[in-house]
């Protein structure tokens, strides 16, 4: 029955006909669900990233600081019976490594490729600005007969 005044294209505005072509309808619903899942996943990943970054960013360093670390090279250091200390700094910090050793040789900061000679009983310093973030190993390359190679400390420079 045709209602008077009803437009011919009214069908286009009417609710979709769910009885027709159920397979096509299921495909559309599935496509929509997949799109929704992909969109929600992207939003959640971004939200989680921002959330975790700011929730855990406690103790963020403010200004560049000067950090002095002292290392006393003992028998225990050379034979690995005690763990090497880990020194922490941040990018931009001014770092001073002051090393006193009973042995002669070279102090080598791996990664930064810095090497200085060290004499027995004397304090030797390595001074630099931590421009690069990373984990750098401070080694003693002994000039004795057995070519002592010992890890004295680890310097961790975290990015700002």
């Amino acid at each position, binding site marked *: 029955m045709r209602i008077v005044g009803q437009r011919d294209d009214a069908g286009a505005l009417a609710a979709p006909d769910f009885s027709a072509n159920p397979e096509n309808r299921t495909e559309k619903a599935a496509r929509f669900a*997949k799109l929704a899942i992909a969109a929600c996943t992207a939003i959640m990943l971004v939200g989680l*990233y921002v959330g975790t970054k700011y929730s855990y960013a406690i103790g963020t360093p403010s200004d560049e600081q000067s950090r002095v670390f002292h290392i006393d090279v003992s028998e225990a250091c050379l034979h690995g019976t005690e763990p090497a200390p880990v020194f922490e700094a941040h990018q931009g910090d001014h770092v001073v490594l002051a090393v006193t050793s009973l042995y002669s040789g070279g102090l080598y900061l791996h990664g930064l490729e810095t090497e200085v000679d060290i004499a027995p009983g004397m304090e030797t310093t390595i001074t630099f600005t931590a421009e690069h973030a990373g984990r750098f190993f401070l080694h003693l390359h002994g000039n004795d007969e057995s070519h002592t190679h010992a890890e004295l400390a680890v310097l961790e420079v975290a990015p700002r």
Partner: protein
Amino acid sequence: MQYCTVLEVSLRWPCRAVFFFVLTCLLPDTAQAHAFEVPYVLPIPLWIYMYACMAMLVLSFAAIGYYSATPATGSLPATSSSGAGVKDYSSAVGHSTILVLRTGAIGLLLLTITAGFIGTKDPMTNINMTLFWVVFLLGFAYLTAIIGDVFAIISPWETMLDVCETCGLDFSKARVIYPRALGYLPALCCYIALIWIELFTEQSPFVLSVALVAYSVIVFIGAWLFGRETWLRYGEFFGVFFRLIGAMAPVAYIRTSGSSEWQWRSRLPFSGIVDDPKEHFSLMLFVLFMLSSTIYDGLHDTQVWLDIYWKHLLQLIEPMWGAVDPKERSTLIIFWHTVYQRSGLILLLALYVGVYLSVIAVAKWIAKIDASVASLAQRFAYSLIPIAFVYNFTHYFTFLVTQIKALPWLMSDPFGKGWNLLNLSRVPEQSALLDMAFIWHMEVGLILIGHLVSVCVAHLISLRVFHSRRQALLTQVPMLILMMVYTSVGLWILSLHLSQRFNDLGG
């Protein structure tokens, strides 16, 4: 003491022989020196680790949701993963290209071996260490994931066999029938030996050259006994290794049967690991060793792993030694530390295999599948390749980038004799280091991508294997948990601090 008694009583002669053989293999050698520059690494911070774990959960559930949203009435994907509607490109690989590549490959192998024998002993200035460990095993492996298994075309060991055949030696026929039960075990043994050399021996150019010569001899003997085709397929480790990595690439290389002509064909990325039919149980072990060895490489340097020995195991085993003088005690401590470190490589593989098979058994039980656990385990093993690959990449990326910069200078002076063949300027004192924040984000991003790809590949494999979507989805629940565990372990190790000291002590 009680443990000693039990051990003595229970070990009968055959067991004792094996036990002492294993102990002999585990005997400590000299402390490791630094073969290369110490890697420029910093453990990922807590917030990135937390984010990565949560993101992994989100991606896992999203993948499950995505596949669940597919209508049950929908048809299963076609058997060929070249994909409907995706145009295939294929073409022959030119003869001249093959000739140049094969000549280059054999030339580089000979250079690597020669440099170890006549070049400097310093691993930093001898080209052979960088060529093999960095360019070949890292750089070329990562390239293979993009350009496909080019190694199958240019394998220098195959070229050597070709040369020998032109000289009259016949490698085409098998003199001994290859035992079917062996499968890929020879390749796996070579893989374990390679990782053993990498982790536990004093690496030097000379040792590397000796190892490569020994390996070449093994290839010749294997090809002579079992025929070149069989040995190159099952026994040649590098061929198997690059074939598995190349299966992820969007390019496949097909040898025209009975000739030396090759064709390349485009395909969907990762379709090679979805389509590859199950082969042999040992190939599953090979894939799991790809994963476990890289994990162990990361783990065995960490403070957590070393603390297990120094703080816990040592307290357990020390009372068994009884009253010993300090020197003997020190020797025993180092000996058992070495045993602990080296057995860890094999024990971790055993753990990964055990966990994997258990998960497959649970999947079989949940979905009520008729196939055997071994058969299912073989079929799904390829789905772990992306996780293994990305973890390997993230683990070695900084090392690769740092070390590869020295290559031009090494090419200019390959033997470390002070030459400058390419007339290059001197090596810069301090090369620019990578941005650590970039490294963290790249590591975590790649691990998440690898995890997602593995989950999707496992699902696509299950759709090929099982009759219904319901079965395919049900099997994915335990597989998903397994992948989450493997990925979490990879992330966890990235967040751990390294400790070089105790490692230097015990090897």
